[in-house]
């Protein structure tokens, strides 16, 4: 064989052949990588529970699971208001599209009735469903992954003891490429950290318990931590503030306390009742959270508060709230304020009907944008009808968009020393699409 033959084809033909070979090689490598990737991301389906099997559970386990599910706020994302608990179908808006909370009742066809405990645990820890499909991290398994086996079992026992509800949840509305579940595997590679939470020996038992609850089932960071472009929590800015259902979740780290210094006792009170004398009331998605926390033991809430307050350790002293500055020439909006708001918010006694406080104390009014103020006015605080709770009327039917915007600006000017908001009209228009009072 001539050297030439071994060395390769003659120049022109040789190059073409080289390319084809490279392409072929490239394809093979790509296929191998893809195969490796697929092999790596692929999860097997876990066998369905046999038909007509019932999950037997100890009563105490069910009760414990209920408490944990309450801390985890599962019912909030997995229930449509007015429909049975955990039956799913609630739309969750994300920057990537709308995801619908799944049906967690033990219905075999539309819920998790065929899921074994192993399947449930895998979902909580790894974000994979029974059939092996990737679950979108709108389901915060990046937090739930820290839950212990026992706790996951209790939650499973509890969920499987609920009445089965047949409810086919709508398909997610995610545009390409987000509708390709496999992509989530890549996301997980970057952002899912599954190392368990080891207790900090320098901290108290209570602090560690609080950390377990907050970082784990409580998934507070899901709302209170800013997210990057791929929708993952920014690890370097934990608890620096975030967004939930278009409401602003204020920071829990040192940057919060510039205006509102929380002690552990105050925060415990706030988290279990939804109200604190110096800070006001929990509204929006936080109202659901405190409603749930109000049902678990005070010890658990105290532990949560202990940990959360520690996040702002070493912060500077708070500045005092701003004063009520009556505004000349405010126009007819003053009459609207007097008729709709002052009755509660301007009591000569300091605390008005339904425990309304002066708006000088309101986090919403002091915030960097109008998101919370607009939504508080439009939708009030309305989850009080069955078991009581904090309250504010919803003004979405009472006032027009223009009036709500004017009122929002008025309240900002009167009760805050901060610069005027410039996003008010846009925020009102956006909030209009988010719902309506009953």
């Amino acid at each position, binding site marked *: 064989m001539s050297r030439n033959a071994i060395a390769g084809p003659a120049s022109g033909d040789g190059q073409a052949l080289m390319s084809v070979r490279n392409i072929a090689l490239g394809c093979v490598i790509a296929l191998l990588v893809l195969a490796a990737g697929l092999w790596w991301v692929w999860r097997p389906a876990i066998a369905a529970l046999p038909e007509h099997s*019932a*999950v*037997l*559970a*100890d*009563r*105490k386990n*069910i*009760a414990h*699971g*209920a408490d944990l*599910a*309450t801390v985890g706020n599962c019912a909030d994302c997995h229930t449509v208001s007015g429909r049975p608990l955990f039956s799913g179908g609630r739309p969750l808006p994300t920057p990537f599209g709308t995801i619908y909370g799944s049906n967690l009742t033990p219905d075999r066809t539309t819920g998790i009735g065929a899921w074994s405990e192993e399947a449930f645990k895998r979902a909580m820890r790894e974000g994979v469903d029974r059939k092996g499909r990737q679950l979108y991290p709108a389901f915060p398994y990046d937090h739930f992954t820290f839950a212990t086996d026992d706790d996951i079992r209790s939650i499973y026992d*509890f969920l499987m*003891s*609920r*009445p089965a509800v047949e409810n086919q949840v709508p398909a997610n509305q995610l545009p390409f490429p987000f509708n390709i579940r496999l992509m989530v595997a890549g996301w997980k590679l970057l952002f899912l950290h599954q190392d368990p939470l080891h207790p900090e020996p320098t901290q108290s038992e209570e602090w560690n318990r609080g950390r377990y609850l907050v970082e784990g089932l409580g998934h507070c960071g899901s709302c209170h931590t800013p997210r990057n472009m791929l929708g993952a929590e920014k690890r370097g800015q934990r608890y620096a503030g975030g967004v939930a259902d278009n409401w602003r979740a204020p920071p829990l780290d040192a940057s919060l306390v510039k205006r509102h210094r929380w002690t552990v006792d105050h925060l415990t009170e706030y988290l279990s009742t939804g109200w604190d004398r110096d800070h006001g009331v929990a509204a929006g998605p936080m109202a659901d959270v405190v409603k749930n926390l109000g*049902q678990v033991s005070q010890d658990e809430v105290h532990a949560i508060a202990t940990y959360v307050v520690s996040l702002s350790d070493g912060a500077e002293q708070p500045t005092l709230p701003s004063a009520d500055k009556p505004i000349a020439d405010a126009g007819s909006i003053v009459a609207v304020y*007097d008729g709709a708001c*002052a*009755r509660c918010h*301007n*009591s*000569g*006694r300091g605390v*008005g*009907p*339904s*425990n309304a406080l002066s708006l000088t104390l309101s986090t919403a009014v002091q915030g960097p944008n109008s998101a919370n103020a607009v939504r508080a006015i439009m939708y009030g605080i309305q989850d*009080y*009808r*069955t*078991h*009581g*709770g*904090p*309250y504010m009327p919803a003004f979405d039917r009472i006032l027009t968009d223009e009036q709500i915007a004017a009122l929002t600006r008025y309240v900002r000017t009167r009760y805050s020393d901060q610069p005027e908001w410039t996003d008010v009209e846009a925020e009102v228009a956006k909030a209009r699409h988010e719902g309506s009072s009953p």
Partner: protein
Amino acid sequence: MNSRFDLSRRDVLKAGSAMVVAFSLVGASRSSAGEDPVAKPVDLDQVDSFLSIDDKGAVTLFTGKVDLGTGIRIGLQQIVAEELDVPLAVMSTVEGDTALTPDQGPTYGSQSIQIAGATIRQAAATARSALLDQAAQRLAAAKTDLTVADGLVSAPDGRRVSYAELIGGKSFSLKLDPLAAPKNPSLYKVVGKPIPRRDIPEKLTGRFTYVHDFRRPGMLHGSVIRPPALGADLETVDENSVKNIPGYLRIVRDGNFLGVVTETEWAAVRVARELKTTWSKSATLPEQDRLWDHVRATRVIKDDVTSNVGDSEGALAKAKTRISATYDFAMHTHGSIGPSCAISEFKDGKLTCWTASQATHNLRKQLALMLSLPLESVRCIYVEGAGCYGRNGHEDAAADSALLAQVAGRPVRVQWSRADEHGWDPKGAPTLIDLKAGFDERGNITVWQSDFFIPQGAAGNVDLIAATLSGKPRDNLISPGGITGDSAIPYQFPNVKTVCRRLETTPLRPSWIRTPGRMQNTFGNECFVDELAAALKEDPLEFRLKHIDATDRRGRELLERLRDIAAWKQGPAHSKPRASGILTSSILKGRGISYVKYELVRTYVGIVADVEVDIGLGDVRVTKVFVVHDCGQIINPNGVRAQIEGSVIQTVSRVLKEEVMFDRGMVTSLDWATYPILRFPELPELVIDLIDRPTEKPWGAGEPSAAVVPSAISNAIYDASGARLRSVPFKRAKVKAALQSI
């Protein structure tokens, strides 16, 4: 019997026509516009106190009992119309006007039909007899041959004379005759029939005048700024903080009574809210978490032994086994949907007060006392308000308006706010109950002993807040209502002792609230009965049948009907396999039974409640309720049904959700978000079986069915889950704690 009509007396008709109705001839109930009333008798033994017939045959009933939305107006009209044989269409009622109606006592206690109805029936029977005597003379016929229809008396020969011709506008001048026989029930045409109430159409079309709608010429508005804590003293008032509110007129300050008078209703609201005041600090209430310790530690000033059979102390000591339990029942507020309202007007030193008080004759005395006026100078006129379910804030609103009107020199309307009503209306007192029972070696119950820790006092006047705040004369009474009722039990054991330990004080001003005492006491008793049955592994229904008086035919029949209607399956409570604690579902179902013979002497009620207990979340849902009800002769079955529906729904709400919240200074549950009540999505289904006994006495129906609801629910929760709920309300935290303690 004197049948002569005294023609020299003032024409009752003239008095009647002077009572021009300014606003609605609703229902037909006529509220006076306040003209000077012509004197008419109001003595309880005179027919003229209750009835008048004008020269057109219109019949007016004057009664001290008032319709609070309960339907007694039509019921009492049915009684009169039946006895007199007049059409309902010619009847109208004047209620609760102290100048025109007899004092038949407050409208409470399920006594309107039972007691007042009996009196009115007697008055009507007396009147009828006298009219027939007259007619017999006029028509020269025998009285016994006469017939009456539609107010027309007919003789056998066809000649007729009307009531209008016989008496038209004149007085009867007759005492109530106990021998005047009422009509035989077998001849009833309207009593016992579901005659529609006449006020409802007006209420559905916006034409009804509630006290809240009542207006007087020149009327001003007022509100009262009450202390932020009970017992706090007013220190400073900054009038400048409200001077610029449109409609503001003046402050009225008298001791700790601080009121405002304004030209408009909204100004009264704004001023009350914006007025800057400072008050001293005061902390007179116990901590809510320690309420029951506080009750138990309160000094007992006397014991009311409500039943004593054999020797209970000795029997307890000798008993082979004993069980005991403690039950408690929180403070509740009346929670009237329409907060209290009153209008007062002074003219020539005389006060007229338009009020929805259920006891206008008593209120009149209280106002006279407070203002140091002679009784004749005070007139209270009843105008219907929202349902009050007992002594709520109406009397206090009346006192507020009277004080303000006296100073303002013009009529003043006071409309209480929601916080006024929730915060300041008198409350159902907290009840603490200890129960003990003993068994012999064969498992027979040998002794039942109970102690009820409840405040002293009865159903007298409740001090007016305005009098207390301004330091004016008042009764200085604690009046929680007749709350010893049903502390004794309808069951027979060899040794029984039931004792009400009357406490010197109670937190928050008390008054009676629907089924006062009888609800709380029946709760303790009927749950403990179930505890005994469970200890003996007996069916709760059979247990009750076994131990009630064997000769109580009506009680036994009621329980058997309850068994039928509820399809009650025999067997001890909570005996199903799930008692083992291993479950496939966290929603457990159960049913409970309860029974009462109201005050041991009247209305019988039996109830079965079906519940679902969510052992994960601690929620209790009442899904279905069966009620069997025997109140003797039923005047209007729709009215009885409505009262039972109302009692059951309202009491389910009280049992599952309600509790007055308070801190060391004051009530803190001041709105519907801090004092939630039942809403539509939580309604149970309700099946009612009414037993009508036309030949028996009519007994009350406004309250008895409420008495059995709390225990039926608690017993059902036990059946479902094995957890005993001994503390009302059955809020989630308590349910979870009870479940965990098994």
